């Protein structure tokens, strides 16, 4: 299944924030986590993640810091801020509403989101 481009774009911010809410991480690992969570069905070009991370950093939702990988390579780690957590909570409310609305129409239980 190929998920619509606009839908992926809309999901990207809450997805990244939610992953970072579990602990600080770096680009490659974030993408690995997305792939794992979506069972590989949610694909986006890896390169697109970084401009998004930079945007969230500029808006103060996340904070970045250069560190070193296990192999001693320079790597940029991202960490969610309080503002980012607030934004995530707000986005979550919106997604729950969207999910409930569509779920009601399609006779589904609004599941998964609250987990």
């Amino acid at each position, binding site marked *: 299944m190929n998920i619509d481009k606009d839908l992926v774009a809309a999901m990207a911010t809450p997805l990244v924030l939610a992953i970072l809410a579990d602990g600080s991480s*770096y*680009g*490659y690992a974030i993408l690995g986590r997305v792939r794992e969570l979506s069972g590989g069905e949610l694909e986006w*070009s*890896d*390169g*697109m993640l*970084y*401009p*998004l991370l*930079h*945007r969230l*950093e*500029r*808006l*103060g939702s996340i904070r*970045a810091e250069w560190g070193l*990988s296990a192999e001693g*390579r*320079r*790597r*940029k780690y991202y960490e969610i801020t309080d503002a980012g957590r607030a934004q995530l909570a707000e986005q979550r409310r919106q997604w729950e509403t969207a999910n409930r609305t569509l779920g009601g129409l399609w006779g589904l239980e609004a599941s998964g989101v609250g987990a």
Partner: protein
Amino acid sequence: MSADQEERIRQWRAAITRDPAVVGADADELESHLRDQIAELEGAGLRQDEAFIIAVRRLGEIDRITAEYAREHGDRLWKQLAIPAADRGDRRGSLARMIVFAAVAAVLIQVARLAAVATADGMPGAPTASWFPRDLGLFVLPVLIAYFAFRRAMSTRRCLALAGAVAGLAIAANVLPFVAGGSTELLVAIHLPVALWFVVGAAYLGGDIGPSDRRMDFIRFSGEWGIYVALIAMGGGVLLGLTVAVLAPIAPAAIEPVMTWVLPSGAAAAVIVAAWLVEAKKSIVENLAPVLTAVFTPLFAVMLTGSAIVYAIAGVGGDFDRELLTVFDVLLLVVLGLVVYGISARDARHGPVAMDVVRLVAVVAAIALDLLVLATMVDRVGELGFTANRFVALVLNLILLVNLAGTAWLTARLLAGRAMPVRIERWQTGYLAVFAVWVAVVLVVVPPVFGFE
């Protein structure tokens, strides 16, 4: 990793950094990603070259990645973005278009001048009708507005809105019965070009005046436009000065016609040429503007702090200039310009830097200095009388003071690590609306209130 693989990665990195939107640190981050991906694929048993190809494919086409970076980091190449991508190729077409519009501005100002001479009301010392200096901006800036409307290929509806705004301003400045030589007429003459400049902004942004980062683009454009105009004016001054020096001994009678024909047309054309230069020759001034702010912000910080101390110790003298407030308005405007320009040249992702401290010192000193003067002014307003000039100067002073106070507050929070730089940008871009409203008030409300005196 083999030398071949390193070379492949090096070439890929070179390709990605060819676009100015991707800077070294971004390339580091992307390269780190690429290497992680390659290592994982090799771990899964792929050959080195296979792993490289798949890892690069996963990252996405280089053009699309750099385009995405360009969208986020508009400040790194904002002028390129401002020109629709299709335009980038046809430099020559854009040059021809600019020359046409510049010529229109040059001709229009002469037509207006001749009309003004023809309708001169014979006031002593005024060879032209009184509307000419007041309406000067109306003969130049609408050409610039049309230039941008054309360049941005704006829709008919938006073009009509721009035309409506210009027409409205032209009517406002010309139907009111000003007392000739009165101060309300002078105020209108000063504020009309500013109001028109806001319309230029709307055209520059192709009508998208809402988003804060687009407004910031216009602020950058304005600053760089100003620098280019100043450079052209200096060159033009040298040219005209030498012309006069050369003509004086042999044809002194030719000097005046040269001045009346070349000077106004040249100045009007310079308005368009400078706007074109900002977009076309981006990388020249791009490096100059941050340097200028970096040089002058500390100097102004020292000057303002020193002046504030002197004023605080000596007190604002009893016989100070009645129009001192106007001087301070200019001072605050310059400080605001330095601050806004400094912010616009700043990388919004970085936390506090030393220059933010200098900026804060300059702003706080300017506020302190201005408050000293303002307190004296308000104290003595009954004695001095409330003219249109003083009223406008006072309100502008308060508007600037509020802006700088907000800037100081946000800069202090930035330094304390409690606010993002983007907050200062938004404060400034949002404040443009306050300035626009105030300019409209000066044009439309102030003259009748003060009886057009």
